């Protein structure tokens, strides 16, 4: 990420433009990226890249399906729990409650075996009834916390024990088992009974699955490529629109240059396509890179004012120190990669193979180098745009060099083609940014029209890119079938997860209830004085968590058909951890639903990544702990940086 330049000398420029002279106008990246979730998102992407690199199944579509499957139920609970935590309370009964409501639903629909059997209700009654019971649990927890003024940690710990005990007790009393089954028996009944009690209907709602291998779409890759390329292009245009100052009159010559760049890029893409990309065709890549550069310069020529005062090519000590450190780190990473043997998988230290050490050193030093170089470029920008662009350009060249170095040093096609392509595109974009920011003037005052257009483009661009990726995940092409694509199933649970997260995020950001949630968690006294119904808000939050537990319990009942009495016990801390990894504060009053969802995905990735990489499961919790610790630290660090940029 290119850091924004902070400006001291800008005050005059801004006031001349009619803005608020005290409002230091934030850089384009700060404006787009400063969100509470950004730290968690960056941590998630890093972890994904890490496991993608070290394991085979993790990066496959089936791996993604597994990650989403694990994160779905965890995430629904994490989001609900994070809302409760924002409201300043904890619910330790949340984990046990998931299993409890699954069991209750099953007991309500069963009417066979066991000492007393079940109630034998139709799902149409059983589901609303167990939902009512869930609301009752939330009401109970909330009322108890409000009435006793005891810490919710203690009150809900009691509920937790009660739930754990009654799950086992009732299961054994009613069906004489430590588990309650089976949901899919209802479907069997439909043969000799008039109705399947709604099983077929609800099974579609709660457990429908999309089998990728059954959905072939041969123009998928074209759509994917279009989506990603068009999406990225729009994102870059959005950056331009948000960053540069518009011209009074447009320069049509620029449009021509822009078109030329597009043509160059397309030639490159076709070239790559025809060589199937497996050779890492340098000619095609070169065309694309050059096309990107020319196209965006043309675009800028067409619309934006050029920069007059560029400053000289002088580096302050502030900027040169990280530059030197960055170069040293990069050199060290190259040396490490050459020095250690990539084929040696024997332990040289405790648990670390030479292969592994090499990878760790190379990636770690490389990433450090990138961070130092970017810091240097940002600091250089305080005094001179020329220096800033020069350092950024150098960084771009080094990224490209590293890409080729990786290709030369590695044997797997994953690193030879995919990494090369991504890094070259990144280098081209950085170089383009270096050149254009040198040539064109930055807009340092709000411009509502440009701002709106920019933001719209960001949304459209990211949607296009996401659609491309989703299409690639959901559909299979003939070539993959021929190669024996592993089956990947995407469950409707993922949609529940996404929907629930979106709803909670909206509620937090846009509704009264959301405001009140932040308020009662941030300062209960103050919010009560001002007329916020603090007790009611808290009770409703407890009910939200219980409702989420009901949803998860129902999803599990349809997924697993049989629910163990122990289901969910002990998971309450995972929900809290996911929420905290996602940036929710333990003390209440701050957090985000989307962050908690990302936190759940991070946890799911860590859990899936460990077996995918075939790491010894005896050390599993050590790995898990380290990953989560790193994620939290990264999140906190990035967020504090981002907030400081406000």
């Amino acid at each position, binding site marked *: 990420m290119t850091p924004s330049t902070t400006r001291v000398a800008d005050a005059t420029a801004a006031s001349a433009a009619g803005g608020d002279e005290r409002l230091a106008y934030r850089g384009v990246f700060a404006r787009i990226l400063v969100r509470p979730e950004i730290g968690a998102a960056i941590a998630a992407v890093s972890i994904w890249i890490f496991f993608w690199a070290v394991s085979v199944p993790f990066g496959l579509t089936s791996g993604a399906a597994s990650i989403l499957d694990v994160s779905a139920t965890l995430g629904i609970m994490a989001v609900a729990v994070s809302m409760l935590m924002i409201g300043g309370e904890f619910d330790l009964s949340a984990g046990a409650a998931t299993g409890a409501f699954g069991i209750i639903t099953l007991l309500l629909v069963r009417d066979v075996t066991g000492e007393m059997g079940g109630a034998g209700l139709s799902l149409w009654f059983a589901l609303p009834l167990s939902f009512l019971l869930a609301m009752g649990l939330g009401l109970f927890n909330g009322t108890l916390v409000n009435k006793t003024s005891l810490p919710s940690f203690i009150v809900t710990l009691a509920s937790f024990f009660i739930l754990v005990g009654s799950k086992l007790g009732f299961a054994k009393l009613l069906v004489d088992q430590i588990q309650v089954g089976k949901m899919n028996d209802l479907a069997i009944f439909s043969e000799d009974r008039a109705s399947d009690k709604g099983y077929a209907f609800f099974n579609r709602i709660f457990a429908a699955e999309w089998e990728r291998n059954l959905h072939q779409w041969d123009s998928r890759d074209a759509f994917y490529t279009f989506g990603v390329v068009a999406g990225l292009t729009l994102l870059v245009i959005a950056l331009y629109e948000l960053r540069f100052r518009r011209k009074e009159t447009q320069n049509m010559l620029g449009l021509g240059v822009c078109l030329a760049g597009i043509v160059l890029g397309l030639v490159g893409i076709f070239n790559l396509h025809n060589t199937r990309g497996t050779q890492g065709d340098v000619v095609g890549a070169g065309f694309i890179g050059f096309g990107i550069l020319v196209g965006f310069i043309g675009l800028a020529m067409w619309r934006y004012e050029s920069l007059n005062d560029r400053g000289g090519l002088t580096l302050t000590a502030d900027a040169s120190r990280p530059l030197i450190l960055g170069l040293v780190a990069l050199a060290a990473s190259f040396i490490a990669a050459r020095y250690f043997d990539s084929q040696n998988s024997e332990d040289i230290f405790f648990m670390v193979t030479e292969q592994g050490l090499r990878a760790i050193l190379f990636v770690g030093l490389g990433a450090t180098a990138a961070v130092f170089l970017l810091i240097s470029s940002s600091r250089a920008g305080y005094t001179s745009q020329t220096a800033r662009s020069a350092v950024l350009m150098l960084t771009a060249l080094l990224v490209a060099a590293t890409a080729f170095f990786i290709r030369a040093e590695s044997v797997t096609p994953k690193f030879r083609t995919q990494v090369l392509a991504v890094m070259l595109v990144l280098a081209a974009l950085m170089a383009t940014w270096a050149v254009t920011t040198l040539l064109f003037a930055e807009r340092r005052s709000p411009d509502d029209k440009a701002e709106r257009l920019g933001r719209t483009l960001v949304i459209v661009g990211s949607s296009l890119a996401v659609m491309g990726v989703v299409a690639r995940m959901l559909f299979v092409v003939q070539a993959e079938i021929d190669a024996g694509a592993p089956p990947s199933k995407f469950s409707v649970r993922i949609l529940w997860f996404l929907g629930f997260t979106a709803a909670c995020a909206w509620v937090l950001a846009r509704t*009264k209830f959301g405001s009140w949630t932040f*308020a009662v968690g941030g*300062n209960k006294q103050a919010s009560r004085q001002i007329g916020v119904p603090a007790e009611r808000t808290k009770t409703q939050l407890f009910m939200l968590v219980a409702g989420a537990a009901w949803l998860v319990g129902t999803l599990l009942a349809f997924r697993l058909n049989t629910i163990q009495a122990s289901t969910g016990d002990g998971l309450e801390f995972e929900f809290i951890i996911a929420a905290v990894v996602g940036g929710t504060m333990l003390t209440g009053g701050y957090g985000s639903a989307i962050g908690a969802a990302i936190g759940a995905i991070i946890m799911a990735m860590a859990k899936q990544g460990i077996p995918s990489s075939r790491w010894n499961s005896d050390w599993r919790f050590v790995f898990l702990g380290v990953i989560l610790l790193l994620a939290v630290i990264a999140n906190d660090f990035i967020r504090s940086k981002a907030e400081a940029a406000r």
Partner: protein
Amino acid sequence: MTDKPVLELNNIGKFYGNIIALKGVTTEVLAGKVTCVLGDNGAGKSTFIKILAGVHQHDEGEFLLEGEEVRFNSPREALNKGIAAVYQDLAMVPLMSVWRNFFLGSEPTKGVWPIEWIDKPKAKAIAKAEMAKMGIDIRDTEQPVGTLSGGERQSVAIARAVYFGAKVLILDEPTSALGVRQSGVVLRYIVEAAKRGLGVIFITHNPAHAYPVGDRFLILNRGESMGNFAKSEITQSELTQLMAGGAELEQLQHELEAAMARD
């Protein structure tokens, strides 16, 4: 503005069991005027404010709002009747943005229940405009209140009370935690609020802050009223003396002088 008081208290008293928290307090608040309530720690100021704001109820005496006898069961009820209290340290939720704090508990919404959402652009615009009217220039209403200075925080609360149509504004020690300059800023907002037609009750233990802005002074000591004066009836030094319980302060003064003489 008429001379009829917005709020009138006659011999208000409050007991906790056999402990007398407040007794025989009489004062009035006129629209557009500032009534200062002075007293040392433990003088009964907080009981007084809690009765006015509806947190507690009075046990004896008359509480008249615009000539009608009232008794509030909750802060919300008092707020609805136009009595807004701004507490010294409890006024704001520090991690929440300025505009959310401004509209907390009374958010403007769009849509129909259950799909209701806050009209955010409107809320932000109003918050900024209302603060500007009070002479407070907030850079960005999205910034957390915690990043504001103490005086600015008080001023957000005052602007909020004014906007939501408060007739009476109660300020609980708004200057006690502030430096000299910040206190001055807050005092200016108090005058500003009074100018806009509100009856202001300014609770403080600092006569130097009270005297310049006050029109009427109620002095409390150990739960009892030590007097209720118009500005014309009392000087600042008299005020200071009364506040600390007159004779006691004189005694203290003598002791201090004696101690100084010894050195």
